[in-house]
């Protein structure tokens, strides 16, 4: 099972290679942001530069997608006082210089070089801190983490400038080449995120019967929550087959359905004979 991943980049030149690797097609008609996607669950949005744009682009992309469990990855160039141009950095700490807010992206064991990062409003020219510098990550992370678990939000930066090669000398046309040189690292990261988001979808997705039962009867908010819990318990106890059967039965109303489900669960729990147990 492949999970879904949203990629966020600031500049079209940062998107170029990603679009090619993941065979992304542009979403038409163009909306507020240029957006690309494939049929395998990967989408990409070009946010434009700066924290505000990053926040808005994440929000915009989320708004146009159906509900689901998606990972988020910000890929882009960054400055660093001493790291070599072309070095890939998996960001493990983000400081937003203007607000002082700190964010802590997860650190998977992928063998990628880790680094802290400072998000600034203007390109960094003095490189005073021993960290990477960008202009979007803090906004990206804050917004994306509000939409999913923080464990599914990653930031990967490629060093484009340092003290020896200052930011005002960066040739943007070289950006696709910088990404190209890190293709395997970026692919590895995307694959990892797809696995993670697939796992989350597997853990927390609702069985199809839930939607079908919702359509068939009228449920109050409380009953809807209870129905979700009952459906999950049927699955957890290895009684998917029984849930499917119940979903096909015509009950008078939601209350009768819920009573039948409750009794069935109580009986299964009491006997302790679930198919999962039986398999052991």
């Amino acid at each position, binding site marked *: 099972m492949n999970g879904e991943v949203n990629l966020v980049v600031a500049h079209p030149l940062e998107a170029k290679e990603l679009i090619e690797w993941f065979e992304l097609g542009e979403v038409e008609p163009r909306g507020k942001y240029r957006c690309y996607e494939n049929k395998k669950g990967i989408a990409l949005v070009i946010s434009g530069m700066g924290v505000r744009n990053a926040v808005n682009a994440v929000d915009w992309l989320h708004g146009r997608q159906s509900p689901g469990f998606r990972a988020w990855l910000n890929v882009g160039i960054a400055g660093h006082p001493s790291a070599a141009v072309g070095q890939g950095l998996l960001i493990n700490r983000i400081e937003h210089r203007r607000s002082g807010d700190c964010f802590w992206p*997860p650190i998977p064991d992928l063998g990628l070089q880790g680094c802290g990062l400072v998000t600034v409003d203007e390109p960094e020219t003095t490189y005073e801190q021993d960290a990477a510098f960008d202009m979007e990550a803090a906004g990206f992370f804050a917004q994306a*983490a509000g939409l*999913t678990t923080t464990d*599914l939000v990653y930031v990967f930066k490629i060093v484009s400038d340092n003290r020896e090669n200052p930011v005002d000398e960066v040739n943007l046309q070289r950006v696709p080449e910088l990404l190209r040189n890190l293709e395997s690292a970026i692919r590895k990261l995307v694959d990892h995120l797809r696995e993670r988001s697939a*796992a989350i979808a597997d853990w927390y997705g609702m069985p199809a019967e839930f939607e079908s039962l919702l359509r068939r009867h009228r449920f109050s908010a409380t009953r809807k929550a209870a129905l979700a819990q009952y459906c999950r*318990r049927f699955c957890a*106890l290895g009684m998917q087959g029984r849930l499917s059967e119940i979903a096909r039965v015509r009950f008078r109303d939601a209350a009768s359905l819920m009573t039948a489900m409750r009794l069935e669960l109580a009986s299964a*729990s*009491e006997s302790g004979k679930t198919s999962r147990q039986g398999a*052991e």
Partner: protein
Amino acid sequence: MFSAVYFESEVRDHPRTRAILERYRELPHIECERFGQIFNRKAQNFRMQKQYPALILARKHGRKVLPAPAGYGFEAGQSHYFSHMLNCIYDCRYCFLQGMYRSAHCVLFVNFEDFADSILQSIAAGSGTQVFYSGYDCDSLALEPVSNFAEFFVPFFAQHPRAVLELRTKSTQISGLLQMAPAPNCIVAMSFTTEACAKRWERDVPSIEKRLKALARLQEAGWPVAIRFEPLLPEADQKAYASLFDLIFRRLDAGRVHSTSTGLFRMPADYFRNTLKLYPDEPLFARETRTENGIVSLEQPNREAWLAELEEMLFRHIDPASYYRCAN
């Protein structure tokens, strides 16, 4: 074992921090102001983090020694607990820690000396024997090669015979203890569930056989050892428990076991809710439950009779006077 090491700025130069960072020099080292910035963040997924937990080195502020909950532990005087660690490197599905903390990262408080000062104050303020449980929010020994917790606290308690330390564990990290002279007031209490339950619900935990071997070696070396049958899960039948009791008490000198206890599966209701959200697909939590006084336990017909039968089997091996039921 860990994906990264975070450390508070405040403990950057602490000798324990330096030693641990050196031990994990190949991992990312990330500085933070307070461990809560990472550990207490919202929207973390404990279940996912368990797959790549980090170690957080911090200083414990505030109260370091707390009264043990009523019904927890053996009757031997005033009871306290202290937590030099939050969380556990093992992944037991029935554990309440997964519902208590937002993060699966392990926090290690490196200021052991401050804990020792607080323990001394508690000893001085109390009368008679004082019991100190160290494995309430963590496993006491599982991280011993990294933390050297027992190496510090066992000699400390050995100097204070009016105090008793319980090292509650599922770990086989006993080499440090075996190098020390046994301390009569430091008890190594090993937790067990049945073989089937352990296989099903205890991930990354040493096998029953290995735990038992470690416990037998400690007993042979003169250490007081204790047995904790926790949690008792109705999944296992009486035969499974009978086999477990036979296995354990064939290997240990039952007459020299400090204490034996049982405790049913139970969890504070809010922790249970959190755990259920994390593991909606877990059959254990899909069973019928009952909530009494804010504690959730598994619904089980004839629970009291079931427990009494278990105890009867247990008393074929041990003196009932050394037994207690853990209620919390």
